[in-house]
């Protein structure tokens, strides 16, 4: 099995999906001849040409609507938005049409589209190019929201997303695009949506994260194990919506402590949803207040302050030590 980075894994999944299913179309700005800003669609245009790989005009709202129309006609459009900061312009179409088409037509029309977009900070970019809008999308009924945290995960989850009958926002952690490497089997196997992935089992505390923060969360867990003999369980949410709360709740019932980690701002971040569910369903198991380690309630700053914005392994470890010290 070849070692691939996350972009290459995405590319492989797109190739597989297009080969398997002629209704899969790839569209977006610069996805054709140029192969995408991050090269995620590299080579697809050569294979399938303009009819299945479309360089679109710069028109986020419009190309989202066009994708919805295609999906309503039985195609499976995979739309690339170059950075998730540009996907805000898509929200109107996504919210008012993609997510509601099935309900409105009582199932006569559906919207099996995927909107893929790089997400998150840590690449020394700036606002627009470092946004983490997952909670905004997760708030929309009728949408599914998926965020892989590894190349193998990206491959399997993207295949599942493309084959899924409903609209999906697929957010790809930009800073893992080239830094994460995995052995990826191109076996066409999808990873089921709506299930958390337990990456590390542990007795003392449950750490929950997704996307780019999973790496730092694992790093914190490893440090806690060696430096403090704290045994942390690490859960990668992978699909934010529909959320597999059962896996998180089972874990918290065993550990009694929960730390949620995300890089989106604290207020109304998806961590709040997880905390609320745990408080509701595992209150009596909790030995300490739930901790959230998140980005800041401010705009993503320019590089020199970025490290202060991003939750780092050290901040995560500190929060864990607080919960452990509590009781």
């Amino acid at each position, binding site marked *: 099995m070849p070692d691939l980075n996350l972009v290459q894994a995405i590319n492989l999944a797109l190739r597989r999906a297009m080969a398997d299913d002629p209704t899969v179309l790839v569209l977006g*700005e*610069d996805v*054709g*001849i*140029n192969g995408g*800003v991050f090269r995620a669609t590299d080579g697809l245009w050569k294979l399938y040409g303009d009819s299945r790989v479309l*360089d*679109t*005009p*710069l*028109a*986020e*709202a*419009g190309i989202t609507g066009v994708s919805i129309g295609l999906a309503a006609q039985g195609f499976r459009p995979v739309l690339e938005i170059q950075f998730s*900061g*540009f996907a805000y*312009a898509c929200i109107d179409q996504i919210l008012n049409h993609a997510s509601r088409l099935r309900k409105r037509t009582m199932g006569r029309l559906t919207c099996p589209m995927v909107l893929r977009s790089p997400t998150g900070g840590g*690449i*020394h*970019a*700036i*606002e*627009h*190019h470092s946004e983490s809008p997952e909670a905004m999308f997760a708030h929309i009924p009728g949408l599914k929201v998926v965020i892989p945290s590894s190349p193998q995960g990206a491959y399997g989850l993207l295949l599942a997303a493309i084959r899924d009958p409903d609209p999906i926002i697929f957010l790809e952690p930009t800073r893992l695009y080239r830094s994460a490497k995995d052995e990826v089997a191109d076996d066409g196997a999808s990873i089921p949506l709506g299930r958390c992935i337990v990456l590390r089992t542990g007795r003392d505390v449950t750490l929950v994260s997704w996307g780019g923060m999973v790496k730092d969360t694992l790093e914190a867990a490893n440090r806690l194990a060696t430096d403090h003999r704290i045994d942390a369980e690490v859960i990668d949410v992978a699909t934010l919506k529909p959320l597999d709360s059962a896996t998180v709740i089972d874990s918290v019932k065993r550990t009694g402590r929960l730390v949620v980690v995300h890089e989106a701002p604290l207020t109304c971040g998806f961590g709040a949803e997880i905390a609320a569910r745990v408080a509701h369903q595992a209150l009596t198991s909790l030995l300490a207040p739930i901790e959230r380690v998140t980005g*800041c*309630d*401010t*705009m993503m*700053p*320019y*590089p*020199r*302050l970025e490290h*202060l*914005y991003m939750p780092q392994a050290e901040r995560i470890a500190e929060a864990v030590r607080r919960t452990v010290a509590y009781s």
Partner: protein
Amino acid sequence: MAIASNKAAAQSGSARRETEVPPDLTKDQEIAAFRDMLLIRRFEEKAGQLYGMGLIGGFCHLYIGQEAVVVGMQMSLKAGDQVITGYRDHGHMLACGMESRGVMAELTGRRGGYSKGKGGSMHMFSVEKSFYGGHGIVGAQVPLGTGLAFANKYRGNDNVSLTYFGDGAANQGQVYESFNMAKLWNLPVIYIIENNQYGMGTAVARASATTTLATRGSAHGIPGESVDGMDVRAVKAVGEKAVKWCRDGNGPIILEMMTYRYRGHSMSDPAKYRTKEEVDKYRTERDPIEQVRARLLAKKLSSDEALKKIDTEVRAIVNDAAEFATNDAEPDASELYTDVYA
């Protein structure tokens, strides 16, 4: 200067044709244009170097090749006229009279930058110099610039809003919503489409159903003109006409500047979408700065030494800016939460 798309513009009827040789500039104007364009060129070359050294984070879109557009337009303005543009904005800021030090220090994310090191290459403003940004969302500045023009009209001053955007941005829906409002309310706005022939890696013809962007206002009754944006004389001449059109209360107008960017879209651009020959042709045959130099020398209005001296002065400004931008302090951690609310 004949431009391929002028023919289509004339045929479509809405864009007026601009074929005459533009009027000469005075000696002082030529020299000022030479200096201002050279400052942008040298500044951008230095920014490219600093980026290569890892001193500039994120994205950095250079303006090299397009200098005549902003310098020619600036020659036709008066104080109070506003400028707003996208993210390829360093040239616009320098042309507006913003300091090289402050712009460069913003690129490197230092306290002395125009946004205190918190905005970076794409997000700088100077209300004093009537520069309204610096915007990273492609096309989003177009309605903003239209709003600036609305304020001018409401206040009854004779200021004009120069709203710049690219050929790629010209396909965003909000551009056409803006056109409609600008004509409906007769607003003093000049829409300057910098047609450098590519939006990132996509050639105009691959993204645009009609490639003469000067005619994009025809459905709204907005006149337009395609201009040789490599010739600062042509830009200034058409800029003056457009400014007068707006000040006289005729409402919006579109100027399509036919231009070319020499460097990649941003600093990481494999440039698979165009040939080296194409780039070289512009550099050697159409370069905006070399055109002025050639005229100044041919007409004996200046000498090699005098122009070299200007280059030396300009380089000194840019080197000083780079040194400042390298050594200035980084923003304080507390800046993370400043300027979020009143």
